[in-house]
């Protein structure tokens, strides 16, 4: 290996260029796979009925999904404290065992396997993103454990015939745009968009939403003038914006996670092309981070779909919002925190109804019953896919409002999009 010129001292060029390049290239790979070790575990038994009920969770607390992962943790912890304050679950206190999977698929599998087989946890709760929930739910299913996930609505989650997987949001990805399409259907013929552009990130949660929307709108007679898919690490959107501006669509519907949503809007502003309607999947749900990114005045009229709203009058929502504000400097919960809280509510409802921790019975009960959560009423088909509708939200006067469906709406009017400032 190293060529040494004098004993004990490796010269700077002592390492061959090939070795160095190999190391440099593998550094990239290392970054991708480097995972923080899982936390040391004390063996939490579950035998005694006086012992706390241990809920095992692995979350992306570091890495790419650290943002939703951190929010999910907040949601789970608020739920735990509220349940314990009210006397616990089945008269036992609830304890969360949360490990960090570093946004890594291999680690999440190891984590859940360890939680189930070594830590013998009593219940599981899901992790974040389809990427991580896909392998994690398979571990749970194989071990006969109920797996309620707060995120992970890609269609491929539900075509595996799993019996114990439940998605604790209103609808899967391909039904997410239904509420927006219904809104367009309700418009008078001459107010509907005639042309549309569909840029989307290559992400299991955005692509099915945008593909489904394109199909539904084409059936309505909206002509598609531009489509493109870009990778998750794309940072420069000027070229896409130029192409869209040249195609002059009435509607731009973007499958945007976050940075890409802000990036495209900024690039459209630089070209001074403002569509009549703008829809983005999840970027606009990031409250002030979104309005700071594109400028508050430019948010007016932007549509998006969302699973939860802070003003909703659903059970426990007010106490959840208040508790979150108390703990985090008056902050408004992120949607991800609310989704996690709702997933925990689903498990809680099942345990209370069944009266035991029998995983088969819990899953059986959830297949047959509705659960009231802070997201609203949730029910599932035999694959664990939910069967309700998302909320349609719109930015109005610098704040997000719910405009449809009617029973969840926070305002009665829908505004039209204003040109960029």
């Amino acid at each position, binding site marked *: 290996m190293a060529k040494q010129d004098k004993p004990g001292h490796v010269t700077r060029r002592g390492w061959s260029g090939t070795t160095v390049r190999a190391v440099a290239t593998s550094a990239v790979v290392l970054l991708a796979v480097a995972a923080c070790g899982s936390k040391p575990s004390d063996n939490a038994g579950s035998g005694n009925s006086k012992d706390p009920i241990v809920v095992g969770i692995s979350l992306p607390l570091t890495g790419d999904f650290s*943002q939703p992962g951190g929010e999910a943790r907040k949601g789970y912890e608020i739920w735990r404290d509220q349940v314990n304050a009210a006397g616990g679950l089945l008269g036992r206190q609830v304890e969360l065992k949360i490990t960090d999977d570093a946004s890594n698929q291999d680690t999440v599998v190891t984590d859940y396997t360890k939680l189930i087989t070594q830590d013998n946890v009593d219940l599981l709760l899901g992790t974040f993103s389809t990427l991580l929930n896909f392998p994690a739910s398979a571990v749970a299913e194989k071990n006969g454990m109920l797996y309620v996930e707060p995120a992970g609505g890609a269609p491929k989650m539900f075509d595996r015939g799993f019996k114990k997987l439940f998605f604790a949001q209103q609808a899967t990805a391909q039904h997410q745009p239904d509420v927006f399409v219904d809104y367009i259907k309700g418009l008078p013929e001459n107010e509907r968009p005639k042309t549309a552009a569909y840029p989307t990130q290559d992400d299991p949660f955005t692509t099915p939403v945008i593909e489904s929307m394109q199909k539904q709108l084409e059936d309505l007679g909206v002509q598609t003038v531009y489509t493109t898919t870009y990778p998750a690490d794309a940072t420069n959107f000027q070229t896409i914006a130029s192409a869209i501006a040249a195609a002059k669509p009435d509607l731009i519907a973007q499958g945007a996670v976050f940075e890409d949503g802000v990036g495209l809007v900024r690039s459209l502003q630089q070209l001074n092309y403002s569509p009549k309607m703008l829809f983005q999947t999840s970027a606009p749900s990031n409250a002030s981070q979104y309005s700071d990114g594109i400028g508050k005045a430019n948010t007016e009229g932007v549509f998006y779909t969302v699973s939860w709203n802070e003003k909703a009058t659903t059970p426990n929502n007010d106490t959840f919002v208040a508790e979150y504000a108390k703990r985090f400097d008056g902050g408004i919960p992120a949607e991800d925190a609310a989704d996690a809280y709702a997933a925990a509510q689903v498990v809680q409802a099942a345990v209370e109804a069944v009266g035991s921790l029998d995983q088969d019975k819990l899953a059986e009960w959830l297949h047959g019953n509705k659960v009231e959560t802070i997201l609203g009423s949730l029910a599932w088909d035999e694959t664990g896919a939910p069967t309700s509708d998302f909320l349609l939200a719109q930015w109005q006067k610098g704040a997000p409002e719910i405009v449809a469906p009617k029973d969840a709406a926070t305002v009665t009017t829908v505004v039209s999009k204003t040109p960029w400032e």
Partner: protein
Amino acid sequence: MTQLVQALVLGLLIGGVYALMASGLTLIFGVMNIINVAHGALLILVAFITWKIWSLTGVDPILLAVVMTPLMFGFGWLLYKGVLSRISGSSPGMSVLLTFGIAITIEGVLNVTAGNKFRSATPSYFSESYRVLGISLPKAQVYGCLAAVLVLGLLYVVLARTWTGRAIRATAQNSSGAALVGIQASAVAALAFAIGTATTGVGGSILSVLYPFFPASHYDWISRLLGIIVLGGMGSLAGALIGALILGLAETLTATYGSLQWSTLIFYAVILVVLLFRPQGLFGSRLRQDVMA
């Protein structure tokens, strides 16, 4: 035609900024054989500080580079003296481990102090463009690229025209030879590391305006920057510039004439082909060890 020119111009503007970000990385490698995986994290650190100062005072973020650059120079010097000098002479693999640790530390500190949220500085011009003959030149991108060119030019002059620069280059070419003629290797190493880190002062300020970022964003940036310097030839400044321009053009041209989805693949395909024919990268020098290895 306009479309092609637009894509080329944008590609070059983007590439200029990439080049600046990669220049410090390649310099540090060239002199010390340290693969500074923390380079991306340092960029994000600067972006956060710049964003914070901008949001509190309203001072132009790109202009703040004037403050951030000397700060990062000092930080780099301390980092080298305090931490990295301890592994001088070890394998590059060791430097990857150590700097990866630094990157995670910076990410963690930012998570706790700045919060795990997306930020982006939005000075008044962030959404405006210059228009020249039907070509649109986003102002932020133009200013960012100008600042990058300025710093790269300065770096070139320092390396090529000053005795300090000659000492740095001499150490990079042959450290034993440099030591023989009286160059103090450890001082030069600290200086080169400090200069390399100082470039993140400008790079990070520009990043804060051009791209939304959050603490874990550094993973995206470091892999992109490592790709650039492997293509250009590790340790070569000219290589970093050319590598960066190729990446910038690959992004805009594939997005214009194909789909952005392919741009990463095209860029790495270019790297693969170049390495097949020039294993040392475009501008990398072929060393005795390469032939013997």
